[in-house]
Each structure stands twice: as C-alpha cells, then as structure tokens.
C-alpha cells in the first residue's frame, strides 16, 4: 500500500462522504438557486430568443460565420479532456494519488460534454433538425454524410458521452452501495436502484476491476481521437491558418491542458467548500502543478511550430493570416493568451507555488481564460482573413453571445452542484484502498493501535 500516512479510519471516510451528501447547509441552496437562476437568465432565455429570431441574435456575419458558440464548444470539449482521460491513464499506471479526485474530475468531463452538446444546439441554425446528423433509418431514406468531419464529431462525441457516463457510473457502483444503507426515503430508493444490488463480494470486485480496466483501455484512445476529430473540423478545411497538420496534437494538448487547469479549480472548490481537506491535499496540487508545467511547455512548443510553419510557408494567404493573428485587430487577445498559457504556468517550476492553494487557483483560472481565447482566436482570426481580400471581415460577439457564454458556466455549475449531492464525490472505496488496511489487533491490546 503506497498511501500517504494518515490516521484516518474507514468509518471516518464513510461518515465524511455520507455527510457531504446528506447534510446540506443553507449556503448550498443559495449557491444552487443562484446558479440555476443564472442558467435560466443568461443561457436559456437568450437562447430561446435566438431560436425565435435566428442566429442573427449573435454577432456573426458574412466571412465570420462561426463565432463564440463554436469556440465555447471546443472549449468545453477540451475541458472534458482531463477528467476521464487522466483518470484512465492514472488507473492503468496504478497511481494512487488519482483516487481522491478522480470522481469529481470525471463528473467534470461528463458535464463539460453535456454543455458542449448544448453548444452545438445553440450553434446550428436549425437545431430542431439536429437529429438528421444521426444515422437512423427514416422515411426519407436519407443518411448523414459520413465523409464530413462534422459527422466524425457526432460519432466521436456520442461515443465519448456514452463512455464517460459508463465509466463514472461503473466506478461509483460500490459507493452507491455503501451510501445506500446510510440513507432513507427517496435517497435510499435512488441508491438502491443505482447500486444494482452490489454486495461487495470477491467475485463482484474482480469483475469490476477487469471491466473498469477494459473501459479505461478503450477510453484513452477514444479521448485522444475526440479532440483530434474536433480539430479536423478546422484542419480539413482549406482556410489559411486552419489547414494545418499540427492541429490534431495541438488540440489534444490544449484540451488536456485546459482540462487539468479545470481540475485544479474544481479541486480547490471541493476542498474549500466540502471539507475534503484530508483527501485532497498538497500532494494533488503538487502533482497537478507538475502536469500543468509539462503541458504548458508542450503547448508553447506547438504554438511556436504553428507560427514558424506559417511564416516559413511564404504563401500569401498563410502569412497574411499569421500577421493578422499576431499584430491585427485581435492581437491583444493573442498576447493575453501567450501570457496566460505560456508564461504564467512557468511559475509551476517552483514547489512552493505548486503547493500553495490560492495561487494555483488563480493560475488555473488564468489558463482557462487563455485557452478560451485560443479557441476564439482560431475561429475569429482565421475566418477574418481568408483568400479573397474582398471578403475579409471582422467579428465581435454580441450581447446574446456573451450572456450565453456566462450562462454555460452557470449551467455547468448547476450540474456540478447537483452532482455533489447525488454522487459520492470522493471515491470511498479507492480512498480506503490507499489507506493502511486495518491490522489484526492483538487480543490484549486495546483499540487505537491502528496506526
């Protein structure tokens, strides 16, 4: 057992987690109500207005037909990338530090994906026909176009949502069972249903271990493919500055990067407001900080490559798009992104920075702002400068778009707040695994000799 030395007992964990579900303070309700109200006001109402009026409610125009909705879509897909992916990698490599945080990280994946799917609905012009992208036999005898990068997206994201849901659910079955007996009323009914009658027998544990490992093995290549495919929405076009082979690794690295930063944020919040300080420790922030440092270096490298290949190509379209990105209308945003995502994370080189919670929180938020900017710039700058100079344009988001952007954050928060009261947000059985197992107590000795 490689767990950190602590004095916790199995029952303590059990109590803590059950308490986090059952005992709900007024602050929680205030937070939930605020988040839900914000979701309604900032997300759903503007969206309904947009459904009524048309996409014209957003700021998009002729050359810039894609805007913040698509940027948000990529951002949320990217944010989803660390949860399940990281959890799978750490599960396979048997890293024990994953165990206290992976449940909430996976929930982050799931809810990011839900929000991303919502963004697709917001983005398309006629969302009431979105089901046409799914391959199902119909009376029109029409099938979707399987050659389209967008259809790859549909397939990949459907698979990813399915996979993440299954993965988080499978890992939670033993915990549902553990919570089941400690709750009453509707909660008891719900956990009884969710736990499927789990009893914790040796056979069940064995099957769970193998099924879980197979899922992890299947989900790792899936997660990598999902963001590659999202990048191909862009890279398969012939738009200068989008038509690049580096895009797939660029997006995957960017996704894991922003996802890891997202985990840091969520860990901080959980630690602060759910009293999980004993399970989410400096060790986690230290490790995540190292990961952030590595990813930021990778990300910077790919950015340098992107700029260099654009410059070296010498093609007029490429160089103009590059010049516009670096020094054009959107240049302040570009340099903001470089500062937030390439320079600030270098602070993670210091252990003192990595293990202090509040600076890490600020850093993680800065990184995600930078990463959102990156996605926005990819969409906005490239579309503003395409081949025909007559069709050059400029795009500024409208109030509806900004409101929906805020609303997605509120939507995500609402979902997450519901999650912490339904799912045991720290994986009990795996935290128990990392601890010292109870030792045989000599008959003569009294309790308290567990350590």
């Amino acid at each position, binding site marked *: 057992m490689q767990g950190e030395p602590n004095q916790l007992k199995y029952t303590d964990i059990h109590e803590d987690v059950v308490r986090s579900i059952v005992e709900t303070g007024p602050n929680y309700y205030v937070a939930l109500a605020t988040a839900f109200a914000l979701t309604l006001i900032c997300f759903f109402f503007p969206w309904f207005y947009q459904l009524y009026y048309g*996409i*014209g409610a957003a700021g998009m125009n*002729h050359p*810039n037909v894609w805007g913040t909705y698509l940027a948000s879509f990529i951002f949320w897909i990217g944010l989803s990338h660390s949860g399940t992916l990281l959890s799978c990698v750490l599960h396979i490599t048997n890293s024990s530090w994953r165990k206290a945080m992976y449940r909430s990280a996976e929930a982050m994946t799931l809810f990011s994906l839900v929000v991303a799917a919502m963004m697709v609905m917001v983005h398309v*012009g006629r969302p009431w026909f979105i089901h046409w*992208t799914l391959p199902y036999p119909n009376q029109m005898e029409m099938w979707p176009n399987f050659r389209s*990068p967008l259809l790859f997206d549909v397939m990949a994201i459907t698979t990813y949502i399915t996979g993440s849901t299954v993965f988080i659910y499978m890992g939670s079955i033993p915990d549902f069972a553990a919570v089941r007996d400690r709750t009453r009323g509707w909660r008891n009914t719900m956990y009884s249903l969710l736990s499927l009658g789990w009893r914790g027998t040796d056979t069940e544990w064995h099957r769970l271990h193998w099924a879980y490992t197979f899922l992890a093995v299947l989900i790792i290549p899936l997660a990598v493919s999902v963001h590659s495919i999202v990048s191909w929405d862009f890279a398969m*076009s*012939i738009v200068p500055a989008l038509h690049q082979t580096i895009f797939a690794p660029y997006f995957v690295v960017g996704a894991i990067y922003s996802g890891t930063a997202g985990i840091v944020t969520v860990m901080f919040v959980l630690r602060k407001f759910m009293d999980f300080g004993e399970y989410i420790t400096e060790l986690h922030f230290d490790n995540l900080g190292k990961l952030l440092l590595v990813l930021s270096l990778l990300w910077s490298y790919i950015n340098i490559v992107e700029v260099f290949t654009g410059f070296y190509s010498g093609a007029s379209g490429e160089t103009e798009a590059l010049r516009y990105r670096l020094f054009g209308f959107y240049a302040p945003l570009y340099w903001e992104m470089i500062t937030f995502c390439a320079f600030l994370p270098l602070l993670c080189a210091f252990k003192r920075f990595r293990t202090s919670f509040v600076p890490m929180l600020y850093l993680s938020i800065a990184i995600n702002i930078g990463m959102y900017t990156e996605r926005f710039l990819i969409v906005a700058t490239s579309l503003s400068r395409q081949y*025909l100079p007559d069709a050059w344009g400029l795009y500024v988001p409208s109030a509806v778009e900004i409101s929906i952007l805020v609303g997605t954050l509120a939507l995500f928060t609402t979902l997450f707040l519901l999650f912490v009261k339904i799912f045991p947000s720290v994986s009990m059985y795996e935290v128990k695994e990392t601890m010292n197992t109870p030792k045989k107590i000599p008959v003569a000795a009294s309790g308290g000799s567990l350590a």
Partner: protein
Amino acid sequence: MSFLDRITEGWRKNRKPGYYENFDYHWAMTIDLDQCSGCGACVTACQAENNLPIVGEDAFVKGREVKWLRLEHYWEGEYPDVKLNVIPMMCQHCDSAPCETVCPVSATYHNQDGLNTQIYNRCIGTRSCAVYCPYEVRYFNYNDHEWDSPLDQQLNPDVSVREKGVMEKCTFCIQRIRQAKDNAKDDGRRRVRDGEVQPACVQTCPSKAMVFGDRNDPKSKVSRSLRDPRAYKVLDELNTNSSVVYLKKVEAER
C-alpha cells in the same frame, strides 16, 4: 428489389472512379473581364430572379447582406493614379467542392448536371460549408426576411424563399435550367440547345461579358470561350476544379 440487390447495383453503378464526372450536362460559365464594365446589372438581376432578401441597413452594416453574385472591387495604385479592378464572384460550382464534403447531412451535393446544389429543406445551419468555401460565396440566413409591399408581389414563384437558419448560394438559376430541359423534352429533343438557357446575370449583362453553356458540348459557345488563352480560374491552386472561368483582362504596358 431486395436490399442486397440494391446494394450490389449501387456499388456496380458507382464504384468506378469518376462516377461523378459523367454528368448529363456540365454547365459552365466564362466571364470576360475585358468586357466587364463593373456596372452591377448582374447583381440586380440575380437579386430579382432568386428572391434574395433585402436585409436592410442594420444587417448590411453588420456584414450580413445576401448577394449570390457580388462584385469584388480591388483598387490599385495611389490617388490620382488609381485603377479599379472588378471581378464578379459567385458560386464556382466546383467539381471537387470543399463545401460538399463537410456538410454532415448531405444538404449540398453535386447533381447530374454538374451543379453544386443546396437543399434548403435539408440544411441544419452548421455553416461549415461557408467556412470551407474558399470563395466566400455562401450566404447564411441570420433571420427571417420580409419584403415590404409591393416587393412581396414580385417574388419569383419558381424559387423558394429561404427561412432563417439555412445556407444559400448561387444555383446557376437552376429553375431556368430545369425549365429549358422540360421544354426540350416537350419538343422531343434529347438535349437543350446551346444558348437556350441563360442565368439571370448572363441574360442581363449589357456588355455580353458572361457566357453560359454546356461544357460537355465541344461546339457550344462556352466551350470555345474556355479554350481562350486568357482563361484562368480563381484560386486554381486549391484544386477545386471550378466551373466558372474568368478571361483575363489584358492591358498595354504603361
């Protein structure tokens, strides 16, 4: 016919590379920039023929005007020694169209006449075709449009009015092509005669700069025009194999 037979037949019919090249007709257009005066009559004709919305001042300022055929203006030199180059730009009906591959629901595809078609009813409005199009000739309906009276009385009944959320673009006046093909069939002819069908822009062009016809017919006017040494395609290096060919403006050295 059983399901399996349908599969085998479809496979037999279409497996050869180039099944998409043997079109019944292959409509093409040439635009002689030497003759083009940049008057904009084609733009107006297109607007009238195809029920293009009049978007209004606000939408125009936002850059949302819908012009299936637009005149691109390129200025050269400094005042007073300035020169204006005008080039009409519309859907190039590429044979290897980037916009077609990206549509997830096959709302845009190549029909048997070699035209790049847009099916408004099928479109879900992802707008990716507009991004993939290097000519920027696809226009999106950002909202429903209204025609003030009496303009609503002069809408072309042969062309559908597009609703919000769908993409639209130049169709080479497909309603006229269809009409000409129907007429040819009624007359007992197998094919449409050269010059029998003209899109609105070609019909209107006062300087006869635009020529439209069937590229498959080597004797047609457009085929002769295509063999002109001045012929070039816009953004030919992108290998879109466009069907609109421009004839270069030739100027004396100054």
